[in-house]
């Protein structure tokens, strides 16, 4: 009986406090909102998951964005004002991402948001970005479909990843190509576009298979590949499936020497998980690899590794977030007002020197002209760049 | 006239013959007590009558209808057989009042539970039952806070609320004090005066208090049948009880 009373007292207290916390927070909100937006700084939203499964790609992106923001602020900020990042974690749940983007735009009054990684979360937040005439800077390679006028896409679309890759494959590795992809928009669209390019390049499609997202059992797929006897596998397998795919590819006796995998989604971090032995000899195509030999790249990798000791790896995605923030800073520098349409138009034609080299935003389609590189995985787990476009590749949707 | 009739029923559980070719006839309005040592098959017979167990062979007839193997809810609802379990079997976190209210006859289909409105007649009925089982004062207490004896009474009240034509009571006095046992006997006599009642019991004094006819079961078979006085004198019965179960006579 005494116990119960004690508990109840505590309980009432807890409830009261939480309710007050809720209301208090809520009541405070209008003040924050009505305060003149960013008197001493410019608020930008940074929306990445540090919890849940998406954090595998988004933690490095968050780190890179933080790094870029710190560098920009250390160099004096934008027009003398510091960038004030507002970090939000959407816990790998697209439904929560819609809530967080609203919070950033409506509550924190950010001028733009850098973030999201998977198509699911990007597509989830876009309607709110559009409705509120805000700006999203999206830094991941994606399928290049349904672009939004309120989004700046700073990483590659399939045409950029495959435009040079496919002809190179036909020329150097073989004509008969087996296509595999994760069964979602990115995988399916990338494969569709790559197939068209292959036919143009004179190659031959010997098979096509899609595996469910998150799939980890590849014995059936490998069986089908073997029966088709291709020269090369073109892979748009993404996410959690990448590591098991390569591991089992080797386990079932397929080797990079006879039948290399040419991927548009396998980067340095996944290679670590696959293990250099199983990964060596396969190819990937990205605009950026850690080994890219520019002063910006060296500085970026060194700064990243010294600043973040959280077992994350610099990849094309991290570089995308890094140059995405730089592009945003430049656009903020150029724009007179920070409303959505003005800011979006400030992006058009912008150029920055990024770790991957000089890149520029297309004046018409909100996408970015990027480098195109093909890397071969070395036995030490790093990439060796075997092809470089040496010119910017146009983003074609 | 036979109201309940068991015709050569047997029940076997994976080879073990719990009830063996038992035939039993109970007349309307009769109070029949079934006694017998542990494992004699008494509870299994109740199980069969109430539908918990289907007979492996043989038939159970109630008012001429064959009810063997029917669902418990059908037997309880359509054929109006009430059952009090061995050891109180109640709705634990419902109040005393609610336990009786749930049991009320005639409101057991889903549609009827929606149409049900509590009126004066119903609440009077519940009050009457609660008075009879001496629990009106505790009507708003959860059944778990009752004493063991009170819980047994509450279940008897539920059986009454069911308005059954046949009542089966499985050891209604188990675990009761002598005083409570006596009160229970009086309750059965008054509350179930005009009903057909089958009681399974161990307590010989209690049996004497309520019994009209007694059937003795032993190893799944009917050993003897008759008035309490007759059965008590039957040498076979005495032998069985002496041999198998000392505590039962005590």
């Amino acid at each position, binding site marked *: 009986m005494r116990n119960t009373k004690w508990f109840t007292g505590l309980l009432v207290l807890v409830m009261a406090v939480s309710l007050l916390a809720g209301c208090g927070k809520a009541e405070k909100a209008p003040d924050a909102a009505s305060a003149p937006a960013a008197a001493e700084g410019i608020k930008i939203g940074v929306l990445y998951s540090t*919890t*849940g*499964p998406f*954090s*595998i790609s988004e*933690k*490095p992106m968050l780190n890179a964005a933080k790094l870029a923001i710190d560098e920009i602020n250390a160099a004096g900020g934008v027009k003398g004002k510091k960038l004030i990042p507002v970090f939000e974690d959407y816990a790998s749940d697209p439904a929560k991402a819609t809530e967080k983007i609203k919070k950033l735009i409506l509550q924190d009054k950010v001028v733009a948001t850098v973030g999201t990684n998977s198509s699911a979360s990007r597509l989830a937040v876009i309607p709110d970005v559009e409705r509120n005439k805000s700006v999203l800077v999206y830094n991941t390679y994606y399928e290049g479909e349904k672009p939004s006028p309120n989004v700046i896409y700073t990483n590659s679309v399939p045409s950029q990843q495959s435009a040079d890759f496919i002809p190179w494959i036909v020329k150097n590795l073989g004509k008969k190509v087996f296509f595999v992809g994760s*069964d979602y928009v990115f995988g399916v669209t990338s494969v569709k576009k790559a197939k068209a390019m292959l036919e143009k390049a004179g190659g031959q499609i010997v098979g096509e298979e899609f*595996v*469910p997202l*998150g*799939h*980890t*059992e590849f*014995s*059936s797929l490998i*069986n*089908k590949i*073997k*029966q088709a006897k291709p020269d090369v596998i073109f892979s748009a397998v993404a996410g*959690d499936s990448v*590591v*098991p795919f390569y*591991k*089992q590819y*080797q*386990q*079932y*006796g397929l080797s990079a020497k006879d039948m290399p995998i040419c991927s548009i989604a396998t980067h340095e*971090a*996944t290679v*670590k*998980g*696959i*293990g250099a*032995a*199983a990964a060596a000899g396969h190819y990937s195509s990205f605009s950026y690899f850690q080994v890219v030999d520019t002063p910006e790249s060296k500085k970026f990798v060194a700064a990243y590794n010294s600043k973040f000791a*959280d*077992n*994350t*790896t610099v990849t094309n995605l991290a570089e995308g977030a890094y140059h995405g923030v730089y592009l945003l800073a430049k656009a903020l520098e150029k724009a007179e007002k920070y409303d959505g349409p003005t800011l979006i138009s400030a992006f058009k034609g912008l150029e920055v020197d990024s770790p991957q080299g000089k890149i520029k935003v297309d004046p018409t389609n909100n996408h970015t002209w990027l480098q195109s590189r093909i890397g071969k995985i070395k036995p030490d787990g790093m990439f060796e760049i075997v092809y470089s476009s040496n010119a910017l590749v146009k983003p074609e949707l | 006239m036979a109201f309940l009739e068991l015709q050569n029923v047997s029940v076997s559980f994976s080879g073990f013959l719990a009830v063996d070719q038992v035939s039993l006839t109970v007349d309307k309005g009769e109070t029949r007590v079934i006694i017998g040592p542990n494992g004699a098959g008494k509870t299994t017979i109740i199980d069969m009558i109430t539908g918990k167990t289907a007979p492996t062979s043989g038939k159970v007839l109630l008012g001429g209808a064959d009810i063997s193997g029917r669902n418990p809810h059908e037997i309880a609802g359509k054929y109006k057989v009430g059952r009090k379990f061995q050891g109180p079997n109640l709705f634990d976190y419902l109040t005393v009042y609610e336990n009786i209210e749930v049991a009320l006859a005639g409101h057991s289909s889903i549609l009827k539970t929606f149409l049900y409105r509590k009126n004066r007649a119903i609440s009077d009925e519940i009050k009457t039952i609660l008075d009879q089982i001496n629990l009106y004062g505790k009507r708003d207490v959860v059944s778990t806070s009752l004493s063991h004896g009170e819980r047994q009474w509450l279940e008897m009240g539920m059986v009454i609320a069911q308005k059954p034509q046949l009542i089966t009571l499985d050891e209604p006095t188990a675990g009761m004090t002598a005083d409570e046992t006596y009160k229970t006997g009086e309750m059965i006599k008054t509350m179930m005066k005009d009903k057909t009642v089958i009681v399974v019991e161990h307590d010989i004094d209690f049996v004497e208090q309520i019994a009209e006819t007694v059937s003795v079961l032993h190893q799944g078979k009917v050993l003897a049948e008759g008035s309490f006085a007759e059965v008590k004198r039957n040498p076979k019965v005495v032998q069985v009880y002496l041999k198998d179960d000392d505590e039962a006579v005590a």
Partner: protein
Amino acid sequence: MELLISQSINGLSVSAMLFITALGLVIIFGLMDVVNMAHGEFIMIGAYVTYFVTTVFHAPFVVSMLMAFLATALLGALIELTLIRRLYGKVAETLLATFALSIILQQLVRMAFGPEDKFVGMPLEGRFNVGGIVIPHYNLFLIFVAVAILAVTLALFYKTPYGMQLRAVTKNRSMAQCLGVNTARIDTLTFACGSGLAGLAGALIAPVKSVMPSMGSYYIVDGFLTVVLGGFASIAGTAASSVVISESVTVMAGYMSEITAKVLVFLVIIVLIRFKPEGLFTTEKR
């Protein structure tokens, strides 16, 4: 035809893996009525132990199997003693507590070791090639280990005093207590054993699957499917249902989407349960 044959052979090693990942779940669920939502996280921790033992400390794989078992068994015992112990008999509460635990464990590992995949090498490289059908040695090893685990657990449950006490406790807890069985110790041991098996499963799948904080979520659902088909507390039933599920899904997946195959298998299970509620392969009743 060749596809069919090689799919069925693949199905065997998939079955072995499913059996290994599901067994710990079945033991804890079937014997203790605890729906262990953190089972996947125990698998994950086993895989991380393997990563540290083999990749960081370069010890042999067999050592890592042992270490993974012991480490997760210890963790399981600890959790049983501090949390589960207070919640026996409350299905909802244990479920929620283990769910909370899974959140905590996953995020702790993520914060401590980073979100990215860890590498665990393949301990057995070679493979047999029989008429165009490739069978990796490691798959045979998996099948062998699965059979060994099956034999050992069966022996443990049916031939040892511990197993006898355990079965006594599951059948009638209070009676077992009266007869002097230390039920608390049996509970702890059983939970530890189930957790240890999860850890072992983690070690065994680490070389062929991802090793990362959220990896556990991929195994728990198939585990529960296996339980549904195989029945409570039935170790042999778990083995049989692992084979049935994996074989049918793998073979069908040669011809249709694996998920459609899985959904079909599950619907069949639901309909079957209507007629055989104790699970398909249970012969003895609890």
